[in-house]
């Protein structure tokens, strides 16, 4: 009888270890930080420490569809999703907008989340045109910023900060070749995810990742 009790106890202990060890962890795991990181070693009073600095979105200044100046400060204490498009784009942008609209609808009442769309054709996409575009898409400008600015600055931040490409190209429909990526940025200007905005399943993943990112700040 005592032996049976022992075996039951051991079996129960093993089961407990097994089930807690195998519980789904993806809700607790943090999103990765993307981009190059620098690790600097410091020797301070004989103690060696390492400082890791991660890739950050650079300072920017653009104008949105309401003629408001938009800078990194506009996204202070917020996480946001960024993309690059232009209004006359016939190929991937309509799909990106339809997908970003899904993100907008999902988080429009969530104060933590904003959306930032940059035009890569600032010569055509004026503030007035972006205003009309956003209006027709049916979105609020304090939630989803459509920004324009100097073309070199937009290309530069796209290439170097958000790591997506945009180039003028006469040979493609629309005249610009560009990436359809959606970039998820956290409150520290770090990139936490990149998703193909033309693929519904990847945007599904983005919609799942945003609450995970918000939760990271709640746990702290």
């Amino acid at each position, binding site marked *: 009888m005592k032996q049976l009790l022992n075996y039951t106890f051991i079996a129960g202990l093993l089961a407990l270890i097994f089930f807690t060890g195998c519980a789904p962890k993806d809700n607790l795991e943090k999103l990765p930080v993307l981009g190059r990181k620098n690790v600097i070693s410091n020797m301070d009073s004989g103690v060696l420490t390492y400082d890791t600095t991660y890739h950050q979105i650079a300072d920017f200044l653009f104008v949105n569809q309401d003629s408001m100046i938009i800078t990194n400060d506009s996204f202070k204490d917020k996480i946001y999703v960024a993309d690059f498009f232009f209004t006359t784009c016939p190929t991937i942008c*309509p799909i990106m907008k339809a997908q970003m609209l899904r993100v907008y609808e999902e988080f429009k009442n969530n104060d933590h989340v904003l959306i930032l769309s940059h035009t890569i054709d600032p010569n055509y996409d004026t503030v007035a045109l972006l205003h009309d575009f956003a209006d027709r898409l*049916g979105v609020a400008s304090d939630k989803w910023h459509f920004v324009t600015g100097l073309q070199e600055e937009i290309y530069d931040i796209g290439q170097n900060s958000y790591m997506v490409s945009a180039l003028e190209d006469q040979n493609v*429909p629309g005249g610009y070749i560009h990436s359809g990526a959606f970039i998820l940025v956290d409150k520290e200007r770090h990139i936490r995810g990149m998703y193909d905005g033309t693929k519904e399943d990847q945007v599904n993943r983005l919609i799942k990742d945003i609450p995970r990112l918000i939760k990271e700040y709640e746990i702290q």
Partner: protein
Amino acid sequence: MKYNSCFFFINTTFILFLISCGPNTDQGKYKIKYKQYVNEGYRLYIQHCSNCHQKDGTGLARLYPPLKDSNYLMNDPDSIICIIKNGQKGEIFVNNISFNQPMPENLVLTNLEIAEITTFLYSEWGETKHFLSPQEIEEILSLCP
């Protein structure tokens, strides 16, 4: 075996049936051609049109007009042929809603391809179930504004 009148009657009916509804009849050929146009039209629609007008034809907000349940398709079916080929600039009203996003032209599409897309659109979201021939498309295009 004794051939009686019943046997002949059934056989004749069967043969008559084959003649009138089989694939080698005019009606049969028409049906097959119609289906081919609709299928090819669907494939072309997905490739060239669905990124803006969406796979289900509902368009996007007030940016890209719907094709499904649209007055354009219901009331003035031929008008879409010119739009498919030459694009659309300026404000239009679809179902009393204003749209003003330029639609690019599709000069690469042949008359046959436009005929196929139009046949698909009519069959899916319009009211006419017949198909247009490339010749008819050519005639309509020659009269585009």
